[in-house]
């Protein structure tokens, strides 16, 4: 079985608000699959449906051959999930935290102690095993959170913004952990707000906005959606915008203008035009403040597909409102 998680025309409505609109996607076994989207795009709702903790309005979700709507408790054994917020029982020790979850995941009594020890080692918390989790630093709590969510060694792990709020050390530790998991054959689905993280870690990415899938593919496939070649970005004084636009037009380039920032995509093989632009600008006495050529990043993909930057506070407000209504 190649596809371990299958979403087939899945829709979720809260009242008359459609949070997830007819999404279909397949996650392959053993890959790291990223879900990107602005806040309120439907990422969390999608994940909650895969986890079986909110009912699906219509469509089917199959996890490792199990229909989520029909057998939610069996699906839960298949998935380890770490929420966006770090969630540990602050009044319990690290060991007690792990013990309760080992029991709730029905880990056999004979293996329980071993599973707990292994988790403590993985989280580098062996010497803090009997300290209350509430006294831990953010990074320690996060690591405990991760190993607790995976104490039953599930074939699929879902991480909701796993590195948000972590310092550099803990972020790198988390990335390493995620790669380590994949090496062991675990399938990983993650959402993130860091595009470089998605670019670095993910084998494939789905970009979601307004409850719909905008694009799905490998990072390089997605980047090719923006431009086959490179992206040109020029910043000049406001008064010079028209002149430089004329130059670009004369070279057969169609720019997009945002105030004094001019962007355009250069098809593959036309990178040499950069020097020509500089040359012509000097002739016209245009003062160039900045000029550059770069390969498209996921940022560019994201802006192109969703028309917004990743952080969108209005979207956040809306999603909370819907949730608590």
């Amino acid at each position: 079985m190649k596809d371990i998680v299958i979403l087939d025309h899945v829709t979720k409505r809260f009242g008359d608000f459609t949070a997830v609109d007819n999404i279909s996607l397949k996650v392959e076994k053993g890959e790291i699959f990223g879900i990107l989207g602005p806040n309120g795009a439907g990422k969390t709702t999608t994940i909650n449906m895969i986890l079986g903790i909110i009912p699906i309005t219509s469509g089917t979700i199959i996890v490792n051959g199990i229909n989520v709507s029909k057998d939610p408790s069996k699906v839960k054994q298949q998935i380890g999930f770490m929420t966006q917020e770090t969630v540990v029982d602050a009044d319990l020790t690290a060991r007690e935290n792990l013990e309760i979850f080992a029991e709730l995941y029905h880990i056999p009594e004979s293996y329980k102690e071993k599973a707990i020890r292994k988790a403590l080692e993985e989280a580098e918390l062996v010497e803090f095993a009997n300290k209350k989790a509430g006294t831990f630093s953010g990074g320690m709590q996060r690591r405990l959170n991760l190993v607790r969510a995976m104490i039953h060694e599930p074939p699929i792990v879902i991480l909701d913004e796993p590195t948000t709020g972590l310092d550099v050390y803990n972020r790198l530790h988390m990335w390493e952990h995620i790669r380590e998991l994949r090496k062991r054959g675990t399938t990983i689905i993650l959402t993130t707000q860091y595009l470089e993280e998605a670019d670095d870690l993910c084998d494939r990415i789905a970009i979601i906005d307004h409850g719909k899938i905008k694009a799905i593919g490998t990072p390089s496939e997605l980047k090719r959606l923006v431009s086959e070649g490179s992206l040109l970005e020029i910043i000049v004084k406001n008064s010079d915008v028209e002149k430089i636009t004329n130059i670009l037009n004369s070279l057969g380039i169609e720019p997009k203008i945002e105030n004094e920032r001019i962007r355009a995509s250069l098809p593959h093989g036309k990178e040499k035009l950069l020097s020509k632009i500089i040359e012509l600008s000097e002739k016209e006495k245009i003062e160039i403040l900045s000029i550059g050529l770069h390969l498209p990043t996921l940022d560019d993909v994201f802006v192109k597909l969703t028309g917004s930057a990743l952080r969108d506070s209005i979207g956040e407000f809306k999603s909370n409102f819907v949730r608590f209504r």
Partner: protein
Amino acid sequence: MSTIKDALSIYKRDMLIFKSRLKANLIRSIIFPLVILLFFGNLGQTAYQVPIGVVNLANNKMAFDLISYLQSQNTLKLQTMSEALGFSALSNGTIAALIVIPPGGNSIYIYYSPTSSNAQYVLPAIESAASKFELNIETREPTQLLYLPQKSNSNIFVGAISGLEINYLTFLIAGVIAMVAAFSSMMNIGFTIISERQLGNLKALFLTPLSSLSYILGKLLSSLTQGLIYVSLVIIIGIPLGEMFAMGFIPTVLLTLFLSSLLLLGFSGLAILLALRTPRVDIYGIIANTIVLPLWFLSGAFFPTSLMPQWMQSISAVDPLTYAVNGIRSVMIAGTYPISQALIDVSILVLFAAFTILLAKKLFKLNV
């Protein structure tokens, strides 16, 4: 099978959390009852109290209400006693008057010594109490004994401890126990569930194959355990304050804990039901207080329900707390818990618990 196992894991988790905050939990739980007992219970303590005796041969609701009412009078210091002890106490002047409540009838008999000035002082109070209950009064001097109990009735008194002082404080303790049971379940479990949801712990638990039934059972069990610890504390606090164990120490404590358990289960069910549907702690606090405070005041925790206006009495009759308070008071003070009354109290409390718990299960909503 796994339902029970999961419930025990939830129970274990809650109890570990409870244990880790043990000191704060215990201190918080005794402040309220302690303040109420010390302040309310001692309100009438400085007033001059006239000792009177009560011989209760009726052991029915009327008798109980009358005694409760007299206990709430701060000018009277009530002692229950056997008839033999009563008459001897009256003749040697230990008590100013003796009230005899005969079985069944709608009369009471008041015996007093005409030489006692105190008797003249308390008679109007007793008469007004009796008229409240629409009882006929026959006052007699000790030499004119109208009613002498038959031998067969004497065994009603087997469990009664005579000569114990009953004052308002002892009257209050049953009410405070019921209050602690109701409040601890409403507040502890409710606030825990809401903060667990806000912190994400609730979602984390339900990411495991945990069923809502297991979760509810685990929560009920931990709320029951914690509530019983709090109730036991009140019983212990009550001892130096003049708490009574009219049925004997062990039966009194066991029956009190049993009645408290039913109350704890009922209110815990209600708390789960409300907490899972209330988004915020502050709103939950308002709702919980709006429900529990009136129920508590209407239950007769502070004063006999018979003193309330009719409309309040009708509400009181459907208030589960009323039955718990009545039951605990019968056990603690009257020393007898007639089977007919026990059946009513227990079945109402069981119904209340079953209703709230089943509704909590039916309306369970994760709301993550």
